[in-house]
């Protein structure tokens, strides 16, 4: 029994607790801080979305001025990518990776803390823009150039004042944090695995965070470079994107999307990880085709670096340029599709338990399939010449981000909350959360495809009556009510279960990876004795000594 964790109860004053969290370098605390930080911004982002949907529910609405609306969609997009999705995924990764590879912490604990605080600072900088003074001609407030901030709209001539600079600086700062995080994930996964855990015995979550970390290194940096160029243009009189001096604004687009596209794979790959942990456990079967899953993920990582200009099909690239990016984009769909088949095959012949994590995982599969198919439509450049920059694109990427990423994150919450807190989330509230959110999601985003097909462009603060768009916009707006209620239920569930949820031991789900081999929550040192493994599912081997995995791998 020497390896059982013995909880120590030491009384701490509130100041001591605050200091402990501010100064911590423990990956679990940092992970939790990332997650809580992201959830705060999720709520803010949701409010921004609700305001926009109120404005768009009717044609020619005057609920919001164009200036306010344009700031809202800029902030909504920027917040969502950099201050909700990235931190929440880094948070889960930070928490889980060391545990799942049998390590005591990340490779660089202090760098880890630094990365978190840089991200946090970035978020504060971005939202600080709302409080910065109005300046000259209302120009000192929140950025309104769209989350991709195309040149030359961001030049001082067209964006006077400092609003654009809040966008640039906050992301520069957060980007440094992200790169530091990427370095940490790679170093941890390559250098800190417990004995016996070869790369081919790592949980898929570890593989996927490895690929994600690698992608972060080469995807955030181009954005950093482009932003340095933008700052040089705005403040040093440089001409990177200055068409009057012969500069090219298309170059900004290239650089931005060289970042922007792999970035969405940075976001989805950790979600693949969650699904790859949840589906096997709740289907009671090993992951089908582990080597293929690894190969598919790695190839997605590489191919995703070559697809970026599918965001630029309407920009006027020559026909062979457009054709090249059609090809690479369609090619990346192949390993992605393969993963869906592997997950399906894992469920096939299993004994599926529909606890809340599995509900969200199945929702993910359904929605990611659809989002992938609408993605294929957008990959077809001529089809994109109609659908691009319309509400069809908005529907597509929200299908992936909300229907895919958010659903996977919810699955992760319900699955790992017991490990992080020692208590189960309420299943009843979980089911309410799932069904309400599912209904709201589909109301909003299924019908959002239609205005796109009927010619409604994106980033419009209002639209003409008589285009056939009103009904669909109204339905999309109604869907937000369900989603908002579902999120409130979710937040309530998380808070109340912390106090009254069923107490659990190490392994409430009867799972197979190493994080379930230690207490819930784990002690600060994770494992009293560093474990040593012989297969991909060390706990399966322990529970089934007559039929261990290492006989078959």
């Amino acid at each position, binding site marked *: 029994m020497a390896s059982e964790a013995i909880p120590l109860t030491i009384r701490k004053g509130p100041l001591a607790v605050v200091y402990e969290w501010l100064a911590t370098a423990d990956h679990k605390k940092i992970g939790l801080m990332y997650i809580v930080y992201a959830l705060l911004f999720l709520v803010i982002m949701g409010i921004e979305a609700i305001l926009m949907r109120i404005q768009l529910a009717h044609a020619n609405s005057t609920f919001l001025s164009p200036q306010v609306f344009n700031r809202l969609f800029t902030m909504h997009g920027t917040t969502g990518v950099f201050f909700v999705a990235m931190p929440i995924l880094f948070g889960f990764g930070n928490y889980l990776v060391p545990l799942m590879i049998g390590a005591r912490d990340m490779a660089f604990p202090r760098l880890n803390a630094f990365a978190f605080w840089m991200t946090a600072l970035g978020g504060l900088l971005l939202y600080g823009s709302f409080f910065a003074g109005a300046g000259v001609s209302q120009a000192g407030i929140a950025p309104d150039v769209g989350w991709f901030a195309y040149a030359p709209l961001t030049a001082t001539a067209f964006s006077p004042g400092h609003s654009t600079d809040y966008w640039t600086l906050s992301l520069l700062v957060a980007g440094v944090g992200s790169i530091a995080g990427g370095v940490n994930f790679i170093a941890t996964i390559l250098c800190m695995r417990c004995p016996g855990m070869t790369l081919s015995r790592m949980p898929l979550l570890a593989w996927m965070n490895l690929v994600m970390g690698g992608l972060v290194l080469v995807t955030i940096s181009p954005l950093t470079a482009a932003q340095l160029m933008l700052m040089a243009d705005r403040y040093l009189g440089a001409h990177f994107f200055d068409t009057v001096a012969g500069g090219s604004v298309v170059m900004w687009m290239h650089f931005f999307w060289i970042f922007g596209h792999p970035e969405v794979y940075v976001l989805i790959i950790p979600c693949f990880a969650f699904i790859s942990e949840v589906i096997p456990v709740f289907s009671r079967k090993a992951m089908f085709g582990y080597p293929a899953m690894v190969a598919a993920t790695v190839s997605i990582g590489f191919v995703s670096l070559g697809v970026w200009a599918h965001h630029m099909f309407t920009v006027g690239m020559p*026909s062979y340029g457009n054709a090249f990016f059609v090809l690479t984009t369609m090619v990346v769909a192949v390993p992605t599709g393969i993963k869906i088949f592997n997950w399906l095959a894992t469920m096939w*012949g299993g004994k599926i338990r529909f606890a809340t994590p599995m509900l969200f995982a199945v929702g993910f599969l359904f929605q990611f399939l659809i989002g992938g198919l609408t993605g294929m439509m957008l990959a077809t*450049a001529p089809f994109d010449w109609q659908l691009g*920059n319309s509400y069809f694109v908005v529907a597509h990427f929200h299908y992936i981000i909300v229907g895919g990423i958010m659903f996977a994150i919810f699955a992760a919450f319900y699955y790992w909350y017991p490990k992080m807190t020692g208590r189960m989330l309420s299943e009843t509230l979980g089911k309410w959360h799932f069904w309400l959110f599912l209904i709201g999601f589909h109301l909003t985003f299924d019908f959002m495809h239609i205005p796109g*097909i*009927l*010619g409604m*462009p994106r980033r*419009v603060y209002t639209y003409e009556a008589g*285009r056939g768009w009103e009904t669909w916009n109204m339905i999309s707006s109604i869907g937000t009510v369900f989603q908002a209620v579902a999120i409130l239920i979710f937040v309530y569930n998380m808070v109340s279960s912390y106090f009254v949820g069923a107490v659990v031991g190490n392994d409430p789900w009867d799972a197979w990876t190493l994080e379930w081999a230690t207490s819930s929550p784990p002690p600060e040192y994770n494992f009293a004795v560093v474990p040593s493994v012989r297969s991909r599912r060390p706990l399966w081997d322990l529970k089934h000594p007559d039929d261990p995995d290492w006989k078959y791998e």
Partner: protein
Amino acid sequence: MFFCGLIQTLASTKSDPISPTNIFAPDSTPANSLYHLSIFELEILGVIFVVVFSLLAYAVVKFRQRKEDDSEPPQIYGSNQMELAWTVLPVLIVVVLFLTTAQVIHRVQDARRPEGAIEVTAVAHQFWWEYRYPQYGLVVANELHVPVSDPSHPTPTFLGLLSADVDHSFWVPRLAGKTDLIPNHPNTTWIDPHETGIFLGQCAQYCGTQHAKMLLRVYVQSRDDFDRWVHDQQQDSAADPSVAAGRALFVAKGCFACHTVRGVMAIGRIGPDLTHVASRETIGAGSVPNTPENMRRWVHDPGTFKPGSLMPPQDLNDNELDQIASYLMTLH
């Protein structure tokens, strides 16, 4: 099936009952090419969806854990044959889709300009459209007139696309896919509408505060009507003596600094050409019906219709406003 039915419902002809900007109601060769490729692709993707969804639904129902059954199912780690099959099949689908797509890209983008094509240079501004017809020496604004094109003897309109400031995009869904107008990066697009009528669209690349109201109106006319329109637009501005006061104010108040009225002052390039402004159905780039009352309100303060428009409010008293508005409304 739902989706196919949806497409069927959305696909329509002539003045579309569902939407004047429905991409599935093409009326021009480029839009048609895109439409046919889209339908082909939707059919393939539809099949994929039905197959995978059915498998998922089946799995979810058939493989539920039965109550009181705590045993673990057989652990299957993989299957080389299956995995090979579901790799090869998607690759084949990708090859087919890519080849058909590449063909359409080439056909639309690399289309040769026939003799008799109309040439228009569209210059996008924040937040209005300038159209120049070099073959006719015309400069107009916001309402694009083109002749209808007979498929047996096509008279397409080829548009050169430029920008005076930031990025914009020309999107009239029933006539063609969208193409961007980017400063220092000239683009081209072409349309050959098969029916007369008015085709709507709007700017499709976020360009600033009033991106939403940078609307497009394409008037497709019979050849005779088009030629008559060209002739009318080529004339200098009307010189109605009853609005001489208004014309004088147009000069005295400095309107000419931004707006050209040929025959009066022709140096203003910042704002739309107003030589024949009264001949247009709308002002404010399609966002405001062109009536005397609206014209007066617009000149007084464009922000009442389009807050964020780059035309500032004008410091004019009521009398001056009346005179200028009356003058402008004579410029047919």
